[in-house]
């Protein structure tokens, strides 16, 4: 009897091995243990902070004392609809839309050539050319554009050398988007936004294009389609989820940015700047909080539409 037990008994185990065996039998527990640290962190630090912020947006500011009244009210949200505040929201959304459309147009050829023609060393070169501006310091990029757009900077000089100075002056004289120099006009703000978020458009577009089978394009041209028809009816519909996915980034990032329009722009506020000023010098935390709800709601709607268009599968 005792001999038999000795033979059957497994070799003595270390505590760690016993623990490992115990965990192996409970895969659910393992998943829970793996998830717990990050979920706790994100739920407490991130969602907790978001909740405190949202709560603030239902408070209001006592007009005379400048103190926050901690009674729940919707009056702060009503303030958003005042013409001066609503202008800020409209301006920001228009800029985000313009930047998204432009980056889709500028980014597509790059993504297309990178996905279709680039091989080996060229593939690496395209990767570096997109990744380097993506990962380079945000402020350094903004700074570079300040150098480029300054009145005495490169663009003015280039236009002058080409004898096209009048084109630049004409652009700056345009009502609404013009200004004293490129670095103090909406055109300048737009160019910098376009530059800084462009890689975020290129990468998902390229990923979507890489999944388009070459045989589809062959089939299209075999059946007599012109290159334009192939592009219009085969490539574009298949790349569309990638473009929409990219536009999530370009749109969201433009909505929330407050540094670019502050450094390069006409001085008129965007949502991000309004938030920054309201919570800082103006001390109106409830209004600042209500302003941050605007991009959250817009992005919520945007994401819901993007999901319908299949952009999440392309992410």
């Amino acid at each position: 009897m005792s001999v038999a037990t000795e033979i059957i008994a497994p070799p003595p185990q270390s505590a760690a091995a016993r623990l490992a065996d115990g965990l192996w039998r409970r895969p659910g527990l393992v998943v829970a243990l793996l998830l717990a640290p990050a979920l706790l962190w994100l739920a407490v630090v991130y969602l907790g902070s978001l909740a405190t912020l949202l709560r603030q947006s239902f408070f209001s500011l006592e007009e005379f004392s400048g103190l926050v009244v901690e009674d729940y009210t919707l009056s702060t949200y009503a303030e958003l609809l005042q013409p001066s505040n609503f202008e800020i929201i409209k301006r920001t959304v228009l800029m985000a839309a313009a930047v998204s459309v432009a980056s889709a147009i500028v980014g597509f050829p790059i993504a297309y050539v990178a996905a279709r023609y680039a091989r080996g060393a060229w593939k690496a070169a395209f990767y570096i050319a997109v990744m380097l501006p993506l990962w380079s310091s945000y402020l350094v990029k903004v700074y570079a554009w300040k150098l480029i757009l300054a009145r005495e900077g490169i663009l003015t000089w280039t236009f002058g050398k080409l004898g096209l100075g009048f084109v630049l002056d004409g652009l700056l004289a345009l009502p609404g988007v013009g200004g004293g120099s490129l670095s103090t006009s909406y055109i300048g703000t737009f160019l910098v936004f376009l530059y800084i978020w462009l890689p975020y458009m290129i990468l998902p577009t390229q990923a979507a294009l890489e999944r388009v089978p070459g045989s589809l394009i062959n089939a299209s041209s075999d059946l007599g389609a012109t290159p334009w028809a192939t592009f219009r009816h085969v490539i574009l519909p298949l790349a569309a989820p990638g473009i929409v996915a990219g536009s999530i980034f370009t749109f969201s990032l433009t909505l929330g940015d407050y540094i670019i329009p502050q450094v390069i722009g006409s001085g008129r506020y965007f949502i991000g700047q309004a938030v920054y000023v309201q919570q800082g010098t103006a001390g109106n935390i409830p209004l600042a909080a209500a302003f941050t709800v605007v991009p959250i709601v817009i992005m919520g709607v945007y994401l819901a539409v993007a999901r319908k268009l299949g952009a999440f599968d392309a992410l």
Partner: protein
Amino acid sequence: MTAFSGKRFMRSEGSLAVKIAAAAGLAFLLAPLAIIFVYAFTTEERSFVWPPPGLTLKWFGVTWDRPDVWAALMLSVRVAAVATILALVLGTLTAMAVSRSRFFGRDAVSLLVILPIALPGIITGIALRSAFATFDIPFSFWTIVVGHATFCIVVVYNNAVARLRRLSGSLVEASMDLGADSFQTFRHVVLPNVGTALLAGGMLAFALSFDEVIVTTFTAGQQQTLPLWMLEELIRPRQRPVTNVVAMAVVAVTFVPILLAFLLTGADEQTAATTK
């Protein structure tokens, strides 16, 4: 890799226009970074005049002797190091949970990890600040780290998930069949396979934290990281040539993690991880 092998379309006149547009786009992406390098050597002190009236190395020495630049740099490095370690631990664990099984709320977990970077940074920033104010937490080194770790998790997570998907489940099963327990399997089979992806994710997280300015404005109080120093110079310039040199140094330093991340994981995995 076999995508787009259509020879006929390639020869058509349309493709030349596309290639020219792509080349122009790449020039648009890279030229501003090149310009930073030229301006670091300019002799002009007060304006951004182009072309530079002369070239000098003088400003490199001046920048080297500036204690405020060094202090900001050291703070940025310390914050990025701690935030990266936190993000590595949290991101890897979550990636293992998500890739090893399908469970209820799996999509919600992915969404929660991505949210801090999907919503505009200013929201994360002001939310953290209002939480710090509500609970009377004074600004410190740790308030900056908390903000940075929150949005760095996703970078590590994406890199780890991309690699774990490629890791064949039969490798793990073989290890267990041969008598290794879960910890030994993790140590000797999983870790060597995902190691380079984690290293790449860690470096990108470091780069992200090192460069972050929007969230940091709200969580730093009076402290100055290198990006905050840069922002101050952008809005209220004191000595432009010093800013030029710092900007050039920052671009040059960013080359390193991008190249290493590329060499460690390959272009396809990086494209997938960055866009996911």
